């Protein structure tokens, strides 16, 4: 059984072995003399175009600047930086993460809600882009499962220890093994060995 699962696992790893992937490429850029990585993106280029709205209208009125900043940070903390390992958009300095942060800020200032912005990114990057699973439907299993297992384990343990604390008298009755009995058996077995 375990051999089968090992094979499944190894097979999965082999299949998942990526071509030099986008993440690899972005994670390990090889700077060249021509790349000038220190130059700010967009320097000397046309100014960025006006923020493009999403297909649906914003759910909220455009917020004031302080609310917009707070909401941008909040949404950025919940979304994954696509080129990092387990870092949020808010925590990463990668260029892709900064671009996502800017895009989140634009959408927040247009009045889009947290849910709308998350849906926009999930549509493009998949559920993977959320750092934590949403609290809905089957995902509740992930949120509540460990705690539920802990409770079940504690209850089982409590039931067991209560049973052990008060053993039924019948269980205590057959106790033939006194030190003398052991001694007699030991000596007789020694005799058997000697023969």
């Amino acid at each position, binding site marked *: 059984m375990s051999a089968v*699962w090992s094979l*499944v*696992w190894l*097979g*999965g*790893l082999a*299949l*998942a*072995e*990526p*071509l*030099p*992937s*986008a*993440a*690899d*490429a*972005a*994670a390990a*850029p*090889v*700077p*060249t003399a*021509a*790349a*000038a*990585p220190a*130059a700010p*993106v*967009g*320097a*000397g*280029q*046309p100014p*960025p*175009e006006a923020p*493009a709205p999403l297909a649906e209208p914003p759910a909220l009125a455009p917020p004031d600047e302080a609310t917009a900043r707070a909401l941008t940070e909040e949404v950025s903390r919940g979304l994954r930086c*696509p*080129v990092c*390992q387990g870092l949020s958009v808010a925590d990463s300095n990668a*260029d*892709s993460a900064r*671009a*996502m942060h*800017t*895009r989140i800020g634009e959408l927040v200032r247009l009045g889009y809600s947290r849910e709308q912005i998350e849906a926009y990114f999930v*549509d*493009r*990057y*998949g*559920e*993977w882009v959320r750092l934590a699973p949403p609290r809905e439907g089957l995902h509740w299993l992930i949120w509540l499962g460990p705690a539920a*297992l802990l409770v079940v384990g504690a209850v089982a343990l409590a039931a067991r220890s209560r049973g052990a604390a008060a053993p039924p008298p019948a269980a205590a009755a057959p106790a033939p093994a006194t030190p003398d009995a052991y001694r007699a058996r030991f000596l007789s077995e020694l005799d058997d060995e000697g023969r």
Partner: protein
Amino acid sequence: MRLNWKVLVAGLLLVVPLIAVLATGFGRDPRGVSNQLEGKPAPDFTLTTMEGSPVTRSNLAGAPVVLNFWSTWCQPCRLEHPHLQQAAQVYGPRGVRFFGVLYNDTPEAARPFLARNGSIFPTLLDPSQRVAIDFGVAGVPETFVLHPDGRIARKFIGPVSFADLAAVLEPLL
């Protein structure tokens, strides 16, 4: 030894789903990016080429489009560059439109690279990475093949070969 069926069933109920989850999870590339835009309409965009001409996605409808996000600092992009050039040579005359989109890079870096390595299709500038995000690009290279009706026919993550592109483009022609 007496078999305790209750313990066995409870154990299996816990362990089998866990193994199933782990088996599925280990089969995935943790850094793999979703291809879920495939089959959906490509996001609209208007970008300018390095020469300053605007290119709008809606004006490209009716022809297959190959959109390659790349940068000069990305080694796999250098590997795939000749394949894209070859594909553009073969499929350009058959009606396929090819575009590069410069990702997190500058035209000053791209121009000498293209002069050295060949450039038979235009490169678009996306300085704010807006279009890259709209396409769900997580890094470079990523290549999108757009159906003539505007849907995303295929998303390639990592370097593409001529054969990869031919296999997707042939049915669209």
